[in-house]
């Protein structure tokens, strides 16, 4: 399997686009014609060759473009990547997990050669060829977490586990749906989920925390989450709200299919060995509504989901202003036909 990496931007002229293959493998998040919160966790095991669920850490055509965008964000705002001192071991755990996974998943792009503590890492798409000493920070150009996450798609929260809780003590957050690592750093699980509507009352977070505290080494889990974004912009951070907040005012009936994007997060959960930390990758996939609607089942279903969404959730999902346009636009793809169960295209 060969992929050409897109030469694309996620800001300014927004040259991002999905190929036909990327559309077909898009992780559509709705398994039925309606949406409500659920702790929809499943084992993160290889599933459906070619899908985004096949490899532990998926690499797709947007890899190089996303890494370029990440470098721009970090250059402007280094606090998007932070690690409290006690999380250094977790950073090495994470580097090992990603390097061994990627070398096994994509040997044409990534190679890892280990000679005791002396490691040689080759990343062909990004033109990296480094030799370093495992567990010796001085032998890498960045800390271990930052080093490997500048080469890995998706945001990463690295959570310390203690006192029967999880603590946001490290992370790399540059493609987030309007939340801030700098604000949440050092908070526990209940604290950083404070702003989410309805779910606390439903007991969702108590159940989710209990599950996460018990995630075991060798048995990662995953779930999908979603929101909406105007333009294919990865960096919708509170820090840069002044740059993207007004984008929603540009949406109208004529451009909604092109400008509005469904933003899906493939979240996974991994226990790290030496640190016992829990790492939480949040991989973002974007698709414009006009591309989404090329899959008939998704066009029908998405119309019904957005039309019937409770108002609190519509606000939380960034749809307050644009929802009428989205519903009107999507209605043309909904002929009322029944949809098949599950998330995949027919």
């Amino acid at each position, binding site marked *: 399997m060969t992929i050409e990496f897109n030469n694309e931007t996620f800001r300014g002229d927004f040259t991002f686009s999905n190929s036909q293959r990327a559309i077909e493998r898009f992780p559509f998040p709705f398994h039925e014609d309606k949406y409500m919160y659920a702790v929809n966790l499943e084992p993160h095991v290889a599933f459906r060759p070619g899908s985004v669920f096949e490899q532990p850490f998926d690499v797709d055509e947007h890899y190089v473009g996303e890494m370029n965008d990440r470098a721009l964000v970090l250059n402007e705002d280094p606090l998007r990547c932070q690690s409290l001192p006690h999380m250094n071991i977790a950073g090495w755990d994470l580097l090992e997990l990603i390097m061994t996974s990627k070398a096994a998943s994509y040997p044409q792009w990534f190679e890892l050669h280990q000679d005791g503590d002396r490691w040689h890492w080759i990343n062909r798409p990004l033109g990296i060829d480094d030799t370093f000493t495992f567990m010796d920070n001085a032998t890498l150009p960045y800390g271990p977490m930052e080093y490997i996450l500048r080469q890995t798609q998706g945001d990463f929260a690295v959570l310390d586990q203690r006192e029967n809780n999880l603590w946001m003590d490290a992370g790399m957050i540059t493609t987030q749906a309007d939340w801030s690592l700098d604000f949440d750093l050092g908070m526990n699980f209940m604290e950083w989920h404070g702003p989410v509507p309805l779910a606390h009352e439903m007991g969702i977070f108590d159940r989710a925390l209990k599950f996460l505290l018990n995630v075991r*080494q060798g048995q990662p889990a995953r779930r999908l989450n979603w929101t909406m974004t105007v333009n294919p912009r990865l960096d919708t951070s509170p820090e840069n709200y002044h740059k993207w907040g007004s984008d929603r005012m540009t949406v109208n009936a004529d451009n909604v299919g092109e400008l509005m994007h469904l933003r899906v997060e493939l979240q996974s959960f991994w226990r790290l060995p030496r640190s016992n930390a829990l790492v939480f990758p949040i991989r973002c996939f974007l698709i414009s509504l006009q591309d989404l609607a090329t899959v008939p089942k998704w066009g029908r279903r998405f119309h019904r989901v957005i039309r019937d969404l409770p108002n609190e959730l519509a606000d939380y999902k960034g749809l307050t202003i644009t929802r009428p346009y989205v519903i009107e636009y999507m209605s043309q793809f909904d002929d009322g036909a029944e949809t098949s169960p599950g998330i995949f295209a027919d």
Partner: protein
Amino acid sequence: MATKAHAPTTMIEVEVVAITVVSDIIKRFRFEPVDGQPLPVFGGGAHVVVEMQDGDTQRRNPYSIVSPPGTTDHYAVSVRRDDVGRGGSLYMHNSLQVGDRLFISHPVNLFPIDHRARKHLLIAGGIGITPFLSMMAQLEAEESHFELHLSVRSDGGFLDEIHEHYGKRGSFYRDDRGEVLPLAALLAGQPLGTHLYVCGPEGMLNWVLKSAHDAGWPSQNVHYERFLAPPIGTPYEVLLAVSNITVKVSAQQSMLEAIEAAGIDAPYMCRGGACGQCETKVLSFDGELLHNDHFLTDDEHAGGQKIMPCVSRFQGRELVLER
């Protein structure tokens, strides 16, 4: 071919490649992976669950990994023989032979190092030394500041090895010489940012935890591992309402083992009444729930709504669980 009551992705098949006599009651077992693939890296303090086929009885006992965390070509566990226990340690001591194959779980760590600590104060009693063997290896590799204080009845076999590796960082207190662990002085004399870790017999554990609390140690700086072996009792029956089967629990078996033996994949982690993973809803009962866990609160024990089948038992006419 015999069917196994475990999910293949979560268990690792290993071969016993060496059995070493550590003392008259402790043996060390060295396991190597049958498929030749490296075993998972683990953290200091981690354990594996060892699955044993002892005649008709399948046992699953947790044992701390005592080999160094960086080692992935083998794991070692040390097992103390318990002559009045349920038989798991007797099986390991008397029946298991070099060349035998068995299944172990992925490593699980319920007693991890807290990397916020400026110093690690490790206090162990007897076989409670086992989680500290891997922990010390990791702390040393990370160049962390630590000291071990080990209380033993007599020279149980670990002392020379620890002294050789760690020198003055290991202090030993032998009952047979009338030596006593100077707990009050240890707790009073630590620098700010010290974390305390304790593992040992119930009485010692409670003594150390209470002393630390009374000395004003913040609970966030105190870590302990309480491994409780499931106690022996009288046989009884449990009705599993979801599966709609009745399971017989023998005197030497835990309720969890009996449920597993019936082919039901029940959740578990520590198998010692500490972690809460196996918590099961009690739908109804006519008799007495014999709670032995440290997870549920006193109110929950009295409430009769929940039970931890890894260590708790039942006596009476009928028990119905949501499983």
